[in-house]
């Protein structure tokens, strides 16, 4: 959908947020 709107560099994050947290990288709380 983003590519259709003209964004040329769209990349999904491997593993999503879980993958990011499993790698030990910082997160912030959301309301």
């Amino acid at each position, binding site marked *: 959908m983003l590519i259709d709107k003209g964004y040329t560099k769209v990349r999904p994050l491997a593993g999503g947020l879980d993958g*990011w947290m499993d790698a030990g990288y910082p997160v912030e709380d959301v309301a």
Partner: protein
Amino acid sequence: MTSLVHYVLHYGIPLIFFNVLLEQLGAPVPAVPALIVAGALSRDGKMSSTNVLLAALFASLIADYIWFLLGRRYGYRILRTLCRISLSPDSCVRDTEARFERWGAKSLLIAKFIPGFSTVAPPLAGASGRTSAAFLIYDGIGALLWAGSAVAAGRAFHRAIDRLLAALENLGGWALVIVLCVLALVITVKWAQRVHFLKQLRLARIQPDELMAMLDRGEMPVVLDVRSAGARKHNPHAIPTAIVAQMDDIDSRLSDLAPHQEVVLYCT
């Protein structure tokens, strides 16, 4: 009575039961053709449509309730497992989750008619905290609507299906070979679609350490959190600098973004 029809009639109900059970558990064995044939045979008075519908209903409820309980136990992570075993790329698309959130448990009434959504709906219902009673009621009605539609189609086109069965009977043992070849072709096409879809995802995706390195270097890609509201409630954290966006308001959220800018998104 021809031997093929005799075989189908003798083992028909257990065959329907296991076909529906395996399909709803995630195996690539379409149950609709069997339900249509059963409908045609019931129109000729050779099979009970009530027994066919009951077999399909119970098989569906058993399989779907297993996925519901897995969704309740493991939350949104179960969607990743489903994505791995399902041959339907639609199961992995964020829109199916958004559809469930918009319609709620009532979406179970029509889930089985929508490819991909039928796979995702039961575990999503579990992950989003629906009660077992509500799930079983809506899922049961949905299963009856789905199986009933296929049986009704079989009853409506019973003459054509009778001719098809007679033609298969004339082929003798080759009939089984043809049916197995058609099934293998369906599975191969779905598998190829899935491999292509996952390959595209794999080529495009960015690893967490790559993203972290970009952030450390100050490159500041736009990070989009496009998770559903339910997923965000289940895991109330986000990557620093991430912009929360839903697909229907993404234009307003990205209005200042240049098209060449790098965008990283996560939906689980």
